[in-house]
């Protein structure tokens, strides 16, 4: 009889990882935008931002698909609400990336020479935090195998700690950059400052969300 076979539901972890991959596509596109930012080519940025929006929409579709296909009677090794939280944090990251892309396509950023490197550093660190979180999501398969404990969990735990450290660095850089902008001799125009302020905040948010994601995974580990 196939009764036993029908007992096994489809694991939602693989779709969760697919969603994370889609989110990663958004971050990659955002990297492209930041790479050409010094060239001040608003048209190209606009085009890239449009692509980014498209990618974010794709990620959204995957997200909705997962939500719709997570039936009430499926029994997971992790809490349902944790699972949905993880999904929604991933979704927020994609949202932030999209917002950033669109923001940068509205107006050419007043990127002065002395701010260039700091912005690059901030962006790089923020993205690094995200990639670390993505690595953690990729570990989920193995966590299921070791039923969320053991060396697999130990490894993930250290990865989570590393993510937290990266996030800490991001907020450090964030403050540094903001301080530099505020202490400039010739202040930025109001619109430019608005753009900068948002840019810094959103980049920080990506790192914060990534850290939150890592911590969510930390919560499902079976460690003493």
């Amino acid at each position, binding site marked *: *009889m196939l*009764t036993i076979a029908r007992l*096994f539901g489809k694991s939602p972890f693989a779709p969760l990882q697919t969603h994370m991959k889609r989110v990663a596509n958004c971050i990659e596109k955002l990297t492209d935008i930041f790479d050409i930012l010094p060239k001040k080519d608003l048209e190209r940025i606009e085009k890239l931002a449009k692509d980014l929006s498209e990618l974010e929409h794709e990620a959204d579709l995957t997200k909705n698909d997962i939500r719709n296909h997570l039936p009430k009677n499926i029994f997971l090794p992790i809490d349902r609400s944790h699972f949905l939280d993880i999904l929604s944090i991933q979704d927020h990251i994609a949202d932030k990336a999209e917002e950033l892309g669109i923001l940068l396509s509205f107006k050419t950023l007043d990127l002065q020479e002395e701010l260039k490197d700091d912005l690059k550093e901030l962006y790089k660190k923020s993205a690094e935090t995200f990639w670390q979180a993505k690595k953690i999501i990729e570990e989920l398969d193995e966590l299921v195998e070791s039923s969320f404990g053991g060396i697999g969990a130990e*490894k993930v735990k250290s990865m989570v700690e590393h993510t937290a450290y990266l996030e800490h660095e991001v907020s450090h850089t964030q403050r540094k950059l903001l301080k530099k902008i505020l202490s400039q001799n010739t202040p930025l125009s109001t619109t430019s400052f608005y753009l900068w302020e948002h840019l810094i905040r959103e980049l920080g948010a990506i790192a914060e969300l990534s850290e939150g994601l890592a911590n969510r995974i930390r919560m499902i580990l*079976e460690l003493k």
Partner: protein
Amino acid sequence: MELDSFFQILILVVGFYMAWNIGANDVSNAMGTSVGSGALTLKKAVFFAAVLEFSGAYFAGGSVSETMQRGLLHTNVFLIDPTVFILGMCAALLATGIWLQIASYCGWPVSTTHAMVGSIVGFGLIIGGPEAVQWDRFLPIVLTWVASPMISGLISYLMFIILQKKILYALNPVEATKKLYPFLVFTVFFVFSISLLFNGLENLNLNLSFFELTLIAAFIGFIPACVSYKLVKKVETPSTYPHFSPSRPQNIISLEKAAKHLERVQSASFKNIHDKVSTLASEIHSLAQSMKKEIKPPEKASEYKTVEKMFIYLQIFSACFVAFAHGANDVSNAIGPVAAVLDIIKNGAISEIAVIPSWLLAFGGIGIVLGLATWGWRVIETIGKKITELTPTRGFCAEFGAATTILVASKLGIPLSTTHCLVGAVLGIGLARGMPALNLGMLKEIILSWVITIPASAIMSILMYYLLKAFVFQFFIAH
């Protein structure tokens, strides 16, 4: 043709049909998971299943068959006209066989045992009246239908918790498996033999005290444990061992933590201290980095893969254990009613001391094996393809829990559903966070099938009874 010999042939044919059905549908439960996890090829699985189902039926199938023979109905009620009883039993067998085929064709989850008990009791209730049913024996059986999945779930839950604590959560799973393996082999064989020898082996006329029983079982468990100890020693442990190397990942992590804390101090201090702390931090950081380069963290994936490979053999044992237990429990569904009818034809009554002739058990066993050979292997193949989630560690725990429950119940003469025990066992592992996803919608279906199977098979058997009766009247009595 004499009416009696007609009945004899009829009951044997429908009994065989029933046994064929059991072999065709239910054996897959035992072996499907092993085929799915790649522990056994289809051919080997069918061979093992055939041998073990038959021996289960032959050596341990007696008690449940007795229950099915005379534990459900008061046969004296029917003694005024034994033909009614004979026809009823034939009808019950035929009805269950047909019902099972319809159900498995439509993919409904029904239990052979529930259907069989349902048809016998249904027939007894309608034709013989409420006093024909042995309520004091029927109700406990129904209670064990609820309890058995829970018990097998509990056993496999505990088993999996042990594996988690000792192996999966260990820092070097392969080494931990090597240590635990002989004990697990011992446990499997010990439990297997103790539940088999429990109540004695009627076919061999063994009567043992509990102490002797434990001793023998321990001895039976000890030998394969020793063998496995020798064999397991040969398994190679992955060479990059974090424990013996100074640059184990834990140390690197600790260093990184220290550096991080120092950085915190650094950002909160001034002048002298600030400088000192920052040099310390950078030194520690570079040390951690160089250690990281020195040794890669061990390949976790390969560790767990080795563990799963080692468990393949245990899973084969436990699958065989299930096949044996299944044979012991389910042969009764086909053989119990046959034995009852043959007894009535021979003696005019159900004899005081129930005897299930050995040849009849063998007959049922052959029926099951034939069902397996002609149809069951297909089902094993499909199930194997569908159940890939049950890896050897999980499969072992589930099968161990289910088989122990079924075998003990078989020795106590309780007919229960193998499928439900396995479902309970898998859920037990799910509760211990061992499964990626379980479809609990199945539970609703099972309970529904529960509620539907018994009345449905009861009604079917009554319909069959009237059909058979009309047929017999037409050809034998009317002339």
